[in-house]
């Protein structure tokens, strides 16, 4: 177990190093002079030379990479060109909004997918299951971007029961000291604010959740159905358990492992999806910031955001491995 963990950590380090090289190279490939871009018009040649020396741009590319990497490791991601602020501060200020949205979407996906899977398992072999299969097929082929537009159209425009932009109503007085609004509102027992936040978040979260919910529903249903005619499940039925009890107590745990792995892998896709869905709903998270950064060609900021996303992705994959080991007793002892 310890050896596995160690190997994983080494492989993570290598991956992150690779990511940093890709980001570094990609940004260096940009045509145009970054110094001129940072200084803006009206700067003298001396200014440019001074800044170049400050940034280490007069040195070789390897040395530049080394300087950049040591800075990044120390948390110095540079200064945003368009917003004139420290990149790390900007990124960390927006990250909580994205994380809250992603986790709410994950909860939606798990609930919805689990419900579809259990219902499909109980009603297996009938029209209900066929209907669920059809729904999953449609949902799976529809990207989060289209779901977002669809929800905006139906709930925001035609039914007009939901606002379609922002994270929280701007006129509200916010007592928050952190950026984790949703969590903090619950901890402070300000459920009025929680309701307002959820009111803004449920549509983008649902748009992100729907494709994943179909995947969860489909795979979990398949695993459950395979488990349902194993001997120990039959034995549990003979103990007088109802179909529901049998599913939850006996079948679920063994059926869950493949679904959890898939969910975790797909969760990174979901987080990737926040970029466009946040834009769609004008939700003030990291993804929206990223698109602004790209439009403004704010390269330090883009670098910072991509790196933060990569670190999150890698951490999620690590968490999956650990979770898998915990869930599977045979692996834990093996």
């Amino acid at each position, binding site marked *: 177990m310890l050896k596995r963990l160690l190997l994983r950590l080494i492989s993570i380090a290598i991956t992150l190093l690779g990511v940093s090289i890709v980001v570094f190279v990609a*940004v260096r490939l940009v045509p145009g002079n970054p110094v001129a871009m940072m200084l803006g018009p009206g700067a003298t040649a001396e200014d440019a030379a001074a800044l170049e020396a400050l940034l280490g741009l007069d040195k070789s590319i390897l040395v530049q990479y080394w300087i950049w990497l040591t800075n990044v490791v120390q948390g110095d991601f540079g200064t945003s060109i368009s917003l004139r602020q420290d990149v790390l501060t900007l990124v960390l200020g927006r990250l909580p909004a994205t994380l809250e949205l992603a986790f709410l979407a994950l909860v939606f996906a798990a609930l919805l997918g689990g419900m579809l899977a259990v219902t499909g398992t109980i009603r297996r072999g009938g029209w209900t299951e066929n209907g669920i299969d059809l729904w999953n097929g449609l949902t799976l082929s529809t990207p989060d971007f289209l779901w977002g537009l669809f929800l905006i*159209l139906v709930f925001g425009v035609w039914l007009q029961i939901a606002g379609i932009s922002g994270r929280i109503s701007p006129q509200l007085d916010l007592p928050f000291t952190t950026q984790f609004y949703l969590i903090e509102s619950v901890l402070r027992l300000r459920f009025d604010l929680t309701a307002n936040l959820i009111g803004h978040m449920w549509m983008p979260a649902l748009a992100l959740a729907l494709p994943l919910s179909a995947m969860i529903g489909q795979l979990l249903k398949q695993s459950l159905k395979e488990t349902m005619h194993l001997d120990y499940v039959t034995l549990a039925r003979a103990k007088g358990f109802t179909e529901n009890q049998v599913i939850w107590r006996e079948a679920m745990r063994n059926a869950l492992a493949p679904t959890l792995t898939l969910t975790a892998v797909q969760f990174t896709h979901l987080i990737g999806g926040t970029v466009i869905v946040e834009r769609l709903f004008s939700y003030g998270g990291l993804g929206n910031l990223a698109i602004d950064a790209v*439009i403004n060609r704010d390269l330090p900021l883009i670098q910072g955001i991509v790196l933060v996303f990569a670190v999150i992705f890698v951490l999620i994959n690590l968490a999956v491995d650990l979770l898998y080991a915990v869930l599977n007793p045979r692996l834990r002892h093996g």
Partner: protein
Amino acid sequence: MDEALRTSPRATPWRLWLSGGWLTLFFGVALLAPWIAPHDPLYQDLFLQRLPPFWIDGAETGHPLGTDSLGRDVASRLMHGASVAATVALIAGLATCLLGSVLGLLAGFYRGWVDQVISRIVDIWMSFPPVLFAILLVAVIGTGLTSVIVAIIVIDWTRFTRVVRAETMAQARMDYTEAAHVAGMSRFATLMREILPNVAPVILSVLTLQMGIAIVVEAILSFVNLSVSTDDPTWGGMIAEGRVSIHQAWWVLIFPMIALFLTVLSFTQFGDALRNRFDPVLR
């Protein structure tokens, strides 16, 4: 999409026919757009702003799907948008497929350090959120249709590599592959004659999936204004514009949405159905 998520191999010919039918229509319109589109997609008629589609009062007969906020014909823009989408789907899809499949075949068949290197790069690539990666790339190499296609290839080759590598490894373990080897067939000939034909159905189904994804990525990039120039009609651009005028003219938004939805859905379903039909193992 995961292997386990494929729909059951129960033969559903109507899936093949429906999706195949829509795709034929899509490619047909894409090809013939300059001749069959009723109007110039760029022509602005400020006297005919936001005309509704034909079943709503106030519609003009010349504009069956209405006009947008600049008075441009929605139907014509939709048709020309299909051309852009089809170009991206074909070129980006095929190029991605070629690059990714070759790498996957090499990694899965030769194993060893080749596999180590390729798999490591795939790992690194998988650590980037694809949409953000695409936006970053387009920002780096500049906007335009070529950039969009290049970005899709650079990002999505891993999808093929992962699947093809796994499938190749499975095939390489089969008895007939070993038999070919024992019979004196060279390694390369074994790869081409014994393995590739058996991996092909998988490649084909990922290819159709990838074409759908390419169209969505193009739409997303157009939506954030990073694809082809703003004037050119694209589905993503129409969606972006429709999103702005959503309260005044919802039809500007909904028609490109439906077109995008049906096309993506058809690509995935078509690949799936095709595979069920031609995969010797599943059949």
